[in-house]
């Protein structure tokens, strides 16, 4: 059978999967199917340099490794169904594609608020086209911007908007602090102060109930009764996994695609999941399956899963220990960077400043049962370098379940 490995989703994770399949020795055909019309491109600059006008849209494209020159690209095409028993996927142009191996790399889309009110004037930031539209809206003189959601994308967009000269930027979130989920209170408090010093306003501990305006947004109504005037609204309230096409196969799709410790799906050795959409156990920590929406994850998952799939298809043994990546994450906001290594969210009950102080460059350690499980730096280059020095120590720590 000369059926290809089909990769559903042709963004970062899909590209890395194709490259890593070649690196693992798969010489057979590979077909990548992707909804977006663009070749795979880098998303982090969309809320930073691209939105700020410091990087061109063209500079975002990934440079594929030379050994994937022969893969088939089906861009602007969506996978609408998968039948894992028959080993076929169906495309929106009516074609049925048999596969020998299937890679799930369909990622996430932004969640939208279910509140009543007009839609024009409301933006999300996930794709190149989203960023283009938002940049145009933010560069109109005197705009008042409301960012809903104080997660990392919301904080980045707020910082970029104020730098672009927006008249007002307000961030709304039901939580009491920005990025409190991943960072914990100590560092989230420091982050709040830095944003406020640079002119960002916050409406915290309250949610959005409605959008005001007739044919476009003019204001945002909050649960505490206030109404914030707004010309531009950015919804950055989390994301939902693109798994509808994968339904009907009796799998757990409650939050992304559940995998085993080798990123295999539904007990089928010919189906793997990679990137943001994969919910995998991390043997480095507690073995609980989680999705990880960090830039490093498409590459890490692709590397492991491609070896596993290639070994299966070629009848060899991958001989790999369970997947155990060290999560790493960064975020650029104003003139500072957050740099994280490990899993700070697992050590938020025991947080200590390891270096520096909360008003300047600071390095914070997160512990679980007296063991260091994560570090986050906030500040300039020196802080990020200090965090990097702890990386080796985090890599040496034994598993929490060992």
């Amino acid at each position, binding site marked *: 059978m000369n059926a290809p490995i089909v990769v559903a989703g042709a963004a970062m994770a899909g590209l890395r999967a194709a490259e890593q399949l070649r690196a693992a020795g798969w010489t057979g055909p590979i077909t990548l199917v992707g909804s977006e019309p663009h070749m795979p491109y880098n998303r982090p600059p969309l809320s930073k340099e691209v939105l700020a006008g410091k990087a061109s849209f063209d500079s975002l494209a*990934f440079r594929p*490794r030379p050994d994937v020159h022969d893969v088939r690209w089906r861009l602007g095409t969506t996978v609408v169904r998968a039948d894992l028993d028959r080993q076929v996927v169906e495309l929106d142009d009516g074609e049925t594609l048999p596969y020998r191996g299937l890679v799930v790399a369909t990622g996430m889309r932004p969640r939208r608020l279910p509140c009543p009110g007009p839609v024009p004037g409301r933006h999300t930031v996930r794709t190149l086209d989203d960023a283009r539209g938002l940049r145009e809206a933010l560069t109109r003189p005197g705009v008042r911007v409301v960012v809903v959601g104080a997660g990392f994308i919301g904080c980045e967009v707020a910082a970029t908007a104020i730098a672009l000269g927006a008249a007002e930027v307000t961030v709304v979130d039901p939580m009491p602090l920005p990025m409190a989920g991943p960072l914990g209170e100590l560092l989230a408090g420091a982050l709040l102060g830095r944003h406020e010093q640079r002119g960002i306003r916050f409406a915290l501990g309250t949610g959005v109930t409605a959008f005001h305006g007739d044919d476009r947004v003019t204001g945002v109504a909050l649960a505490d009764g206030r109404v914030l005037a707004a010309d531009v609204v950015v919804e950055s309230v989390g994301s939902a996994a693109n798994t509808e096409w994968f339904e009907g196969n009796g799998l757990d799709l409650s939050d992304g695609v559940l995998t085993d410790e080798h990123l295999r799906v539904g007990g089928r050795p010919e189906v793997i999941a990679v990137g943001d959409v994969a919910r995998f156990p991390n043997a480095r920590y507690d073995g609980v399956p989680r999705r990880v929406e960090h830039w490093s994850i498409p590459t890490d998952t692709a590397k492991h899963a491609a070896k596993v799939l290639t070994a299966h298809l070629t009848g060899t043994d991958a001989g790999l220990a369970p997947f155990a990546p060290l999560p790493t994450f*960064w975020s*650029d906001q104003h003139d500072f960077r957050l740099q994280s290594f490990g899993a700070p969210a697992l050590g938020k009950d025991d947080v200590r400043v390891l270096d520096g102080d909360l008003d300047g460059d600071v390095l914070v350690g997160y512990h679980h049962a007296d063991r260091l499980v994560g570090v986050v730096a906030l500040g300039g280059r020196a802080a990020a370098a200090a965090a*990097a020095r702890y*990386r080796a120590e985090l890599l040496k720590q034994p598993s929490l379940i060992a």
Partner: protein
Amino acid sequence: MQVVVDMNKCQDHGQCVFAAPDVFRFDDEGRLAHVAAPDESLRAEVEEAADVCPLQAIRIED
């Protein structure tokens, strides 16, 4: 194998230093330094370094 780094793009993430410590390092002033023509045996390491650069600033030329 020639390794080219676009220093206008580099933002000191250091991911290349973790991926390929034999080829990339930070010098005493904290600036990225690299071996321009590393041994062919280091190719896999350098490819990984290019993959993990968030700015896509590393290029391999044969």
